[in-house]
């Protein structure tokens, strides 16, 4: 059972317009009972962090398919930290090569979900912090 108060920001950093996955996740998590905020495509890391703090979210889910994840995911983590919001957990998805995942985790991204991930796996992570 999802904890009803968990708040999640689904965000698209960078310049790619592939929002099919982000919107599916946003809607599915909302249907699962979470509070979900989605702010649209082409958001800067600064804008994402500002929204995350204003909306007092528990998780930020970043979706990126252009290959800019190594630069932009850690930037969001760092900006959260700089703004005293390191308790907000950052997770990511999109087209992320397997070999990039260890580096992203080292830089503070909690989990990375690639193509073929089921809703269940994501909910499992949000609820229990386990999974990818």
């Amino acid at each position, binding site marked *: 059972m999802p904890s009803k108060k968990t708040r999640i920001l689904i965000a698209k950093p960078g310049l790619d317009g592939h*929002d099919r996955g982000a919107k599916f996740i946003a809607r599915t998590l909302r249907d699962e009972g979470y509070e979900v905020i989605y702010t649209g495509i082409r958001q800067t890391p600064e804008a994402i962090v500002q929204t995350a703090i204003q909306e007092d979210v528990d998780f930020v889910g970043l979706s990126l398919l*252009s*290959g800019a994840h190594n630069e932009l995911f850690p930037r969001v983590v760092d900006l959260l930290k700089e703004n005293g919001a390191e308790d907000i957990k950052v997770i990511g998805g999109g*087209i992320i090569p397997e070999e990039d995942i260890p580096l992203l985790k080292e830089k503070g991204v909690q989990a990375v979900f690639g*193509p*073929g991930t089921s809703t269940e796996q994501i909910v499992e992570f949000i609820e229990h912090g386990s999974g990818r």
Partner: protein
Amino acid sequence: MPLPEELKKQKKDWEETTVRKVISRYPELKAEFVTGSDKPVERLYLPESFSVEEYLGKQGFPGRYPYTRGVQPTMYRGRLWTMRQYAGFGTAEESNQRYRFLLEQGQTGLSVAFDLPTQIGYDSDDPRAEGEVGKVGVVVDTLRDMEILFDGIPLDKISTSMTINAPAAILLAMYIAVAEKKGIGKDKLRGTIQNDILKEYIARGTYIFPPAPSMRLITDVFAYCSREVPQWNTISISGYHIREAGSDASQEVAFTLANGIEYVRAALKAGLSVDDFAGRLSFFFNAHNDLLEEVAKFRAARRIWARIMKERFNATDPKSMMLRFHTQTGGSTLTAQQPDNNIVRVAIQALAAVLGGTQSLHTNSREEALALPAEESVRLALRTQQVLAYESGVTSTVDPLAGSYCVEALTDRIELEVWQYIDRIEALGGMVPSILKGYVQKQIQEAAFRTQKDIEKGERVVVGINKFQMEEKRPENLLRVDPAIRQVQTDKLSQLKRSRNSSHVQDSLSALRQGAKQDAVNLLPLILETVREYATLGEICQVLRDEFGEHKETIVL
């Protein structure tokens, strides 16, 4: 048209005796069969009653109105489709190498992928370009990059398609300027710019300016090219990305043609006459896995567009009524799991495009759910087209699936659904209001959501994802774009800025700014001046941003 009575009676008899007997012992695998677009499929299609009038009205002959059976009378018996692989990554130097490789392998046209900063009008040194330079396509900051990109490539002999939208006029100007330097006149240039902003608002996301000035830039291109670059396809009205965003087949056609209607209207409003520009409109569709439905989709699209142009816009030149299109196989149908399975998917989709009468084709490579494709995979994708072209035999006759009871029924069904969507969009005031209200995005999202839910529930089988899974090692040696490219490109840019005549640059940009303030001015000649002076793409777009403002997305969830 109703079935003839006798046939109806016989069908009923067959269902009640022969079919019933079999089904009672061997039930069918599913209670309901549906197409890839989730529409019901009947067990068996029968001939509709035949009349010559109806045949001529709905299908006719290839190369004749309503072009259902193809835009050319001889189709692939006369000339094969153009094999055009979409490519570009890293710097202009690297992409130039890839283009030369593709041409050596027998590809017959170029298709340029630009990186996202280029597509959105940011230079490589812009903070918004962080992490994106050279990633999903080649980086172009100035004319210098375009000169390198087309080095050694005969622009008077090949045709070049460029996937560029918001700054399409600028990239076209750069292409013209490169040709000028090679001594090739504008009248010799053949190719396409995508230049389709409406689908950017709907599905693809690389918009810059709001609808009104964006439509102006587009009609400026129509007007300029009709006089100066007569062989250029001034727009590629694209359903591809609408489908990738999750629409079904009918929505893909409906929203694309509704966008087409909007462009034609804008051009008429700008004072052009329909037959002066409509023959240079081209289209771009997706090919998904449901072979028969996809073939029907292409046939229906041709028939509807011909009717729109003839009946709504009173076109008289047959070229204005012909829907000519490029096809790309469906990226979103590819799986990261068991990537070699994608080779088979691509072959089916490519076959659908060919049976549907495409004018050019891009076949995706097997690892595209994971990364940009390596040379070896691109070659295999191109070979898939070559096998279809030279070995399959489907090129020997025109529109081979016509007359299939099933394909004709699907064609009619798609046509009906498309007209319903077009009518709804017209009732909302046309495509621009339909987009700003989020109507179109909502329709697509609903379809995408249903598809994904069906996959999660296992009701829609995706081999390797929800059935026939296996443990596997992720493929290695995927193509990676070196992140150092941004630095290399930024250095190149600052060097260029030092070497150009900056007062000429400023003068050309000021002239563009003045032109942008007056709707009656065609911006193409002014843009051409700026690129000749090596103004950067970012500088040119900034002038237009200042004058036009920026579009804000209508968020629909």
